[in-house]
């Protein structure tokens, strides 16, 4: 499996982001929008992740127009990079805030959206980490997307807690990431990095890949109810993604923040909330 992912040097500890990692991304900043270049797989991932987000949100809503399906929805795109996912969500009508710690990425994203007046208004980019915006964005967003991010995060539980803080109650969290399996080591690291040289060596740390069971456990114990887990597969020959039963390589998760609107933020007693509100997981494994 050819699997290219952008490594965002995301650290949720209060230490600064790894400057070595940032330099790597600064070099690639202008390559974001080459649909056939380094980020080709991320571009084509839109073909499944955008419909996944869109259809999930539509199924939970009763009041929408098919010409502007995400109108009125506030989305936070964490680790937005050059804006590859923010732009389609913006075109579908959402108000998107995209954050990324690498300034050059934000600069690229800002410039790319600037030529389309509709997008320029709907999308706001900010060079920032998640914890830096928590203070001013408590329960602000209807939806958070963290696509190809959590495998780079140092403290995943802290990351999830921060997501919960900025998400409105009953808000949705969408995550796409890579499983930690023998298969993902062989294909994602050995083949992609060392043999085919498609991914620069050292981009991935297999130890930081996240198994879906662990992600589910962390979500459920931090005020989320996991609704969907689905496997994803990349075909390097056709350059396209598809859904599959097995989550042994890439997978996507949809979770909903539990609690009615107006309830106090569960930062102090996350596990208590988790136990009280635990609901059945409707996932494929």
């Amino acid at each position, binding site marked *: 499996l050819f699997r290219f992912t952008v490594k965002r040097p995301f650290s949720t500890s209060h230490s600064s982001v790894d400057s070595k990692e940032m330099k790597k991304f600064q070099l690639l900043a*202008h*390559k*974001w*929008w*080459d*649909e*056939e*270049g380094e980020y080709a797989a991320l571009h*084509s991932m*839109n*073909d499944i992740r*955008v*419909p996944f987000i*869109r259809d999930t949100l539509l199924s939970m809503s009763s009041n929408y*127009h*098919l*010409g*502007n*399906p995400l109108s009125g929805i506030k989305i936070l795109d964490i680790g937005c990079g050059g804006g590859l996912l923010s*732009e*389609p*969500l*913006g*075109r*579908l*009508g959402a108000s998107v805030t995209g954050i990324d710690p690498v300034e050059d990425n934000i600069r*690229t994203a800002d*410039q*790319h959206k*600037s*030529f*389309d*007046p509709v997008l320029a208004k709907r999308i706001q980019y900010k060079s920032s980490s998640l914890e830096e915006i928590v203070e001013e964005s408590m329960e602000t967003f209807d939806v958070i997307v963290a696509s190809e991010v959590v495998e780079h995060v140092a403290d995943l539980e802290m990351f999830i807690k921060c997501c919960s803080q900025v998400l409105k109650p009953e808000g949705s969290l969408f995550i796409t990431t890579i499983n930690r399996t023998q298969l993902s080591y062989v294909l994602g690291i050995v083949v992609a990095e060392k043999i085919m040289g498609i991914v620069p060596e050292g981009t991935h740390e297999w130890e930081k890949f996240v198994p879906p069971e662990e992600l589910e456990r962390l979500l459920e114990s931090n005020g989320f109810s996991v609704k969907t887990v689905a496997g994803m597969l990349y075909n390097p020959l056709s350059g396209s993604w598809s859904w599959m039963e097995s989550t042994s390589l890439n997978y996507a998760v949809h979770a909903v923040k539990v609690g009615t609107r107006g309830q106090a933020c569960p930062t102090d007693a996350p596990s208590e909330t988790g136990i009280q509100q635990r609901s059945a997981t409707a996932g494929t494994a």
Partner: protein
Amino acid sequence: SSAAMAALRGRALLVPFGARLRAGPRAPLRSAASSPPLYDVVVSGGGMVGSAMAAVLGHDIHFHDKKIALLEAGPRKEYDHMPDSYSNRVSSISPGSATLLSSCGAWDHVCSLRLKPFRRMQVWDACSEAMIVFEKDDLDDMGYIVENDVIMSALTKQLDAVADRVEVFYRSRAVGYTWPLPSYSCDTRPWVQVELADGRRLQTKLLIGADGHNSVVRKEAEIRNIEHQYDQSAVVATLHLSEATDNNVAWQRFLPTGPIALLPLSDTASSLVWSTSHDHALELLTIDEEGFVDSINSAFWSNINHSDFIDTAGAMFRSAISLLKPSGTAVRQLPPSVAKVEPESRAMFPLGMGHATEYVQHRVALIGDAAHRVHPLAGQGVNLGFGDIACLAHHLSAAAFNGSDLGSLKHLLKFETERQRHNVSLIAATDVLKRLYSTTLAPLVLLRTWGLQATNALPPVKVRI
């Protein structure tokens, strides 16, 4: 960089994907304040195909909040009142095309104006008795003969109905196009720039070229076009029949000089499309009306081109078929005879064949005659264009619902592959038929005679046609 190299050569190469991302004159960078208005889609060319494209997109639910522009060089025509006499420019509309026109609400208007359904098509050879009859087993119509003006009237009404989404620019000829560099070059405007004759400018995320067989969009995009001028012109006219009849059959006879077709308009009138040599066409236009009518009747009824040899060989083949497949030959009906021609309705236009090697580029798509031009003998011309529209609209609708950049080659290439696969075989077959039937040489006549009779006996082939 490869983009700079291509700019130096000044020509997009055909092969690699990257070369489809044009490097023409760079779109100038201007401040946001002086930016020309930005549209999601601009359709260049307001004929039947261009207007239908704009109308179909305008009625698509996923385009509800999008901005579409249609550029038409001519003035807006008012069609409130249909003249009593029929126009001499008509089209044979297939059921598939009727479905497309229904989808944007135009077909209802067509039906309320006027059209003539036909159930049967009889095609035969002037050099032999060989004949093929097309008929649908169910009682559905095979197709409809509709005046082009009627179609335009219906489309104009449906464009008016979505005027909040579709802006039609009349008397607006595009004189220049500026292509964007591929979108990853950040510092220039990524849209197609369109300059109109009066100096106004537009920008668009996707330019659709529906500007006919001499397409300016295609030329400016430097898309190579394979074209061939036939040494034929088509003569059209509106004819009045000798006696009223059901008139639900379309007739076509292959003469050595070219096919002559009679398309039903009403119980008493038919439309003529006679493809013949340029000289003969001029002659037909200049002779008096009686002589013109005589030529038509003679073309349909005369057996002057038959030879005994061919007739005998043909008859033998027919008996052989009837042994194997008793129902394989159909009853030959007699075409109606013509009494007079509608005054002032005679006209001629030259015929040719054309096919663009590419239908799409980054932010550009060609549809209709801009992409492909075919001989009228197959009655397919505008139907191919409507087929292009159905396919492109399907892909653009899905792209819009996915939040994709409408000008992205990813879905445009899907459109191109689907349509080229469909169109190329039909255009090639039409071209071959045209050449095959342009001769009186016995071997070729025999070949096509047997071919026609065999085709007549084989249901699967007939259905595909």
